Every structure is written in structure tokens, then in C-alpha cells.
């Protein structure tokens, strides 16, 4: 267990963080993110190119032999933290995390070099609410020639996917994971709670899929992707909470009422101290999840369930506290706090609710009903 697992950030990871943070500060300011989210182009393609291709972040977890950086999920987690801090509109979760994890587990299907190089975005087509441990979604049917019919609802980052990785079953119920060109399916953007990561329905009406993995390998690839995704999401949730805490602390130090900074009132100080305490815990939990995923540690399932059960609720609480402690300004569209609340609330449903993960945990550690 955690006795041998490094829960700190290495120097290389801190350097990675610094470069991601600097880029996001330049290209994903709150005004820029807010300005884009109601437009026809909610994702920022220039920012994605800079992150994915120039900084090489799309292929962080991909081996060098497949065109990646040969790092791992610890480093991806650091990127997720920073993306959480900025609520940046890029398809990192759907592509570089879920899609890439599925491809890595499924054998690649020849897509990894393009995906790792940031030239194509391959998004795992599952409802964002799918939790690890759930059965492979069976809303898409495949015939013997790989022609797919059906729909996958509420897919994150599908809007900017070049390739969709679609789990499907054939007439005998055998699972397959198919790569489908985005141009061959209908993608219906939904008006989404999360303005910076909208979901879309994917409709398949005779699209041709290239089989990436079949049978148990396909099921295992989707399971692994959901586990990795849930673990990485904990780091995004940590980043959201960190932004909310830091922004709120800065605000209550400045804001004056009754002749003093409102942050000098114990009623507020104690709330923020409690929030800090939870952020400290979330960091330990998210790091442990990332480290066990990176090392293929057998404790990864427990680690992810703990991190998700904790961080999912924490990010929401941090965003809610952020709005409350900002008072009226926190309720305005102009202030970016709502972007984080919306991301945090959608993230709480994503890849298994805290309740789902607690139930998983009960099964894993033998605390049954």
C-alpha cells in the first residue's frame, strides 16, 4: 500500500506544472474562457494545439515507441490539476485520458502515434456518467462487417473528436471497441450544465467502425479507461478546489465590511480553514490514485474509489463556498466562479458519483451491507 508509494510531486512534475500553468495563464484567462463558452466554437483549437502538440501533453502517458512522451499517469494528473484550475475548454479528459487509456489497453489500433502527437483526438464514446466497474454500455449494435447502429448519449468532448472509440456488441453479445471517423456519425451538441466541457449525443446510423479490440480485451480496455479516467478526474477536481480556495481567500482579505476585512471574521476563517483541510486531503488522495494507476499497483481500484468519493464532493463544496463567500459578485455571470461550480457539479456526476464509488469501495474492502 502507500508505504512505498511516492505521494509528492517530483521536480520534473513541478516543471511540467509550471509550463502548463504559464501557457494557460496566457491563453485561457477567465475572460477568454467565459467569452468562448456561449459561442459556436466552445473549445479552443489554438489552445489545444499548444497543449497537445507543442507541449506534447496529449501523449504524456503513451510510450515513446508509439510516439508519446513515455511519462505516465502521475504526469497526466498534474496536467489535469492545472486544467481544473483554469477550467480550460480542451478535450483532454475525453481524448488524452479516456480515449488514450482505452487505446493503450486495447493495443492501439494504429491510432496512438497520431493521438499522442496531438494530430487527431480520439474520444471514448461512453456516457460521461459511466463509472468504473459498470458493465460495458450496450446501446450500439455491430454487424459482422463492423457497421454500427445505435446511440451513445452525453459524451464529453465528442464535439471536437476526430475519431470516436465506440463500445458495441454484435448479434451474439460479444463486445467490441470500434474506431469510427467523426465525420461518419451525427454529433448532437446538448446545452450543457458545464459550459467549458459540453456533452453531446453520438448517433450512429450505419457508420463503419474499425475493430480495435474484441471480446474480453474490449471490455477490459473500457474498464481500464474508466478507472484511469476516474483517477485522473480526481486531480482535476483538486485543481478546481484549489482555484476556488485561493480565489476566495484572496477576496476575503480584500473585501471590507463593518470597517474590517471580512476574512478577519472567525465565521469565515473557520469555513476556509475547513476547506483548506479538505483540499490537503484531496491532494493526498488524488496523488495516491495517480501513483497507483501509474505503477499498475493492485491497490489502484481502492485508491480511485477513495479519491473519487472524496474529491468529487470536495470540488462542489469548494465551488459553492467560493460563490457564497464572494457574496453578490459570486452570483454574477461576469465573475468566473460559476464556471468552476458548473464544472465541479458536472464532474461530480462524471465517471461515477461519490455514492457509486463508496459502493465500489464497500465491495473492495469488505464493508458490505
Amino acid at each position, binding site marked *: *500500500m*502507500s*508505504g512505498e508509494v*511516492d*505521494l*509528492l510531486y517530483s521536480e520534473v512534475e513541478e516543471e511540467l506544472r509550471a509550463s502548463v500553468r504559464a501557457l494557460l495563464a496566457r491563453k485561457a484567462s477567465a475572460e477568454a474562457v467565459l467569452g468562448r463558452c456561449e459561442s459556436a466554437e466552445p473549445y479552443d483549437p489554438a489552445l489545444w494545439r499548444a497543449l497537445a502538440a507543442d507541449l506534447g501533453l496529449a501523449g504524456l502517458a503513451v510510450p515513446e515507441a508509439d510516439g508519446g512522451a513515455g511519462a505516465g499517469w502521475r504526469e497526466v494528473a498534474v496536467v489535469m490539476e492545472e486544467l481544473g484550475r483554469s477550467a480550460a475548454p480542451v478535450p483532454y479528459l475525453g481524448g488524452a485520458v479516456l480515449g488514450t487509456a482505452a487505446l493503450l489497453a486495447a493495443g492501439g489500433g494504429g491510432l496512438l502515434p497520431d493521438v499522442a502527437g496531438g494530430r487527431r483526438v480520439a474520444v471514448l464514446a461512453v456516457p460521461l456518467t459511466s463509472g468504473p466497474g459498470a458493465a460495458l454500455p450496450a446501446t450500439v449494435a455491430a454487424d459482422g462487417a463492423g457497421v454500427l447502429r445505435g446511440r451513445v448519449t452525453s459524451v464529453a468532448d465528442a464535439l471536437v473528436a476526430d475519431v470516436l472509440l465506440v463500445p458495441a456488441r454484435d448479434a451474439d453479445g460479444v463486445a467490441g471497441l470500434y474506431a469510427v471517423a467523426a465525420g461518419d456519425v451525427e454529433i448532437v451538441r446538448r446545452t450543457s450544465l458545464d459550459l467549458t466541457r459540453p456533452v453531446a449525443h453520438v448517433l450512429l446510423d450505419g457508420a463503419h467502425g474499425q475493430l480495435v479490440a474484441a471480446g474480453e480485451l474490449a471490455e477490459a480496455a473500457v474498464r481500464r479507461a474508466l478507472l484511469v479516467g476516474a483517477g485522473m478526474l480526481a486531480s482535476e477536481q483538486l485543481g478546481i478546489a484549489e482555484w476556488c480556495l485561493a480565489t476566495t*481567500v484572496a477576496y*476575503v*482579505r480584500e473585501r471590507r465590511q463593518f470597517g*474590517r*476585512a471580512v*476574512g*478577519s*471574521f*472567525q465565521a*469565515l*476563517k*473557520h469555513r*476556509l*480553514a*475547513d476547506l*483548506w*483541510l479538505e483540499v*490537503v*486531503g*484531496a*491532494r*493526498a*488522495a488524488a*496523488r*495516491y490514485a495517480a501513483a497507483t494507476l501509474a505503477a499498475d499497483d493492485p491497490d489502484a481500484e481502492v485508491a480511485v474509489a*477513495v479519491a473519487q*468519493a*472524496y474529491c468529487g464532493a470536495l470540488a462542489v463544496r469548494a465551488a459553492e463556498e467560493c460563490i457564497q463567500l464572494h457574496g453578490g459578485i459570486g452570483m454574477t455571470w461576469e465573475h468566473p466562479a460559476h464556471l468552476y461550480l458548473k464544472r465541479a457539479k458536472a464532474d461530480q456526476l462524471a465517471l461515477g458519483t461519490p455514492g457509486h464509488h*463508496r*459502493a465500489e*469501495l*464497500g465491495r473492495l*474492502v*469488505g*464493508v458490505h*451491507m
Partner: protein
Amino acid sequence: MEQTDVRERVARLLAEHDPARTDRLAFLRARFDAGLAWVHFPVGLGGLAAPRAHQVLVDEELAAAGAPDNDPRRIGIGLGMAAPTVLRYGTEEQQHRFLRPLWTGEEVWCQLFSEPGAGSDLAALATRAVRDGDGWVVNGQKVWTSSAHTARWAILVARTDPDVPKHAGITYFVCDMTDPGVEVRPLRQITGEAEFNEVFLTDVRIPDTHRLGPVGDGWRVAQTTLNNERVAIGGQAMPREGGMIGVVARTWRDHPELRTPDLHQRLLGSWVDAEVARLTGERLRQQLASGQPGPEGAAMKLSFARLAQELSGLEVELLGEDGLEYDDWSMRRPEIVDFTGREAGYRYLRAKGNSIEGGTSEILRNIIAERVLGLPAEPRGDKDLPWKELPR
């Protein structure tokens, strides 16, 4: 100092003092003299000036060889609070006089800090120490003193100058608990037993050679003690399901007939919180070991208290009819306090103290808010007034 050197010293100690044929105290003294008591302490004071991380190795190898330990739970205040303070502020003479018998357990220590009128506001303390020749005469009342009835020595803070603001007029002493002016009375608590005492000090004489740090500087000296107390309370390494969560999870697994959906959800929630607290502690230890100490220490004590209270309360509910019973209300004076010992009712009641002792959770939140988050202090009227003019 490399690990191999430490290992060699352990082997030599065991060769020269076979635990099976050496008197317990003689072995402990030899261990201290070999620098293997607390390896991060200086040479000559029970240590080797080695990295603190090497201590684990020493403890493991000695335990494996069947060597006696110094029963740390019986002498927690000496080890956790008095020793670091004596090391930091004591004279060479004081260090050599006090540390060896403190570590071997020959001399038990207690802490004379809190007073009936000075709890969270410890700096308002009213126990007076007045200069008298080459010593001091102390009068006052202290409270919440565990081990006072077994202690040979006490660390004591007393007011030596009432004419300056409260933080400035305090001095730190080592008090001889066998002085005829020291009277110890048990203080019975909600569990039925008396693990604490009230201590009345009447014309107690303390030689000036038993002062720790400069006159008037006792508040700063006390910070060392209090910071170490919080580390000691919240900072132990824990296996998964260690502590209170392990006790309750065991009860859950052993009694399927007691399970309800509500308790199941709450238990899983606490299981997550306990595991996160454990990982936070693990991360804190890794930070310390790599020389990047973080402010997470205060966090540990807060989480520990909240979890202990939640879980112990949950266990009483889980037990149903058995939760209506209590093991024993009789008044006792235990030498060792075990938060996870005895039965569920005791654990529930004892846990109430976890958010009070060693700094209340409210004070800890203030500390986090002001020192970690940089939030402004509450405006206060007592900082610059001479102590004697404070409203009481």
C-alpha cells in the same frame, strides 16, 4: 550517518547487552548511551545526529531481537513535549540531567500549562513566579494535568512580570513534583475515570537552574512544546484501517445482524475520510523526510478529532441495545490512555476530548486561517495592555 552505521550500532548494542539476560532498565540506559534512543538527537544525549527516518530501522531491529521498549505511552508527555523543549532551550547541564531518565521512563513528566482561567487563551495565565534569591517561589492553580500523580517533573509556565503585556511576562520552568507545596487532586471526567488532575501550587520553590530559556521568554519556549504536542497527537503512522475506523469496521463485519442502510452509508463515508486522513499523514511524513515540511500538521489533529468523534458515535448506534450499556463508571486513575481501548461507550465519551485537548479545534482553525491562509487576525483589545490591567 548512513543506515549501515546505524545497523552496526544496533548489532553492537545487542551483542554487548543481550536483551534476554539484561535487566530492562539497564538495557534502556545502554540503548540511550549508544545513541539509539532517538537517533536524531545529538550525540551524548541519546542520539547520533542522524536523520529521523533511521529511527524506524532501530525500533524494528530492536523489537525483532526481543529488546524491551521504554513503554512510550506511559511517558508520552516527556517524550513528545518536554524532551524537544529541553533539547531546544535547555542548558547543557539541564539536558544531561533530564533527558536520560526521561527517555528510559525512570522519571515521568507532566505539563503544568492550562489554568481554570487560561485555556485557549493560555497566555492569560495567572500562576505567579516571584524571584527569591537564587530561585523562584510559585503560587497558582493548574488543571487538565495528565500523569501529575505519577510525575517526577513538570514543565511549567508561570507569570514572572505582571506589568507587561501577557505574552511578554511569562517564564518557562521545570518544576519538581515532589516539592511539598505541590498538591495533586484527581479531576473526574465524563468517562467516569480521572486521567487528569488539578494541581495546586503553594509556595513551591524552583531553583533558577531549572528555568528553561530567558526570563520573560516563556511564551516562545512554550510554542515548541505545543507544536510538538499537536504533532504527537495527530502524527503517528497508521496502517489502513488503523485506529478508530478499524475498531468500527471490525464490529460491522462481526455483526451482520446490526447493519442498516443508513449506518452503511455513514460508515463508508467515514472509511473514505479515514483513508484520506491516513494518506494525508503519509504525505506529510514524506514531505518531512524530503526536507519540505508543510503546514499539514495542524490539519492532522483536526481530522483525527472529527473522525474519532464521528466513528465512535456511529459505533454506539450500530450496537443497538448494547449501545445502551457502559462498561464501568467507577473512578480510576489510569496510567495509560488508549482512545481505542475499553468499550464503545467509553470510546464515544473519551473522543469528545479530542477536539479540546492540545488546542481546541476552533483554535486550530484560527491558526490555519491566519498562518497558512494569511487571513487577518480578529481585532483584539488585550495585546498591548499590561497583564495586570486585563479584565478578568
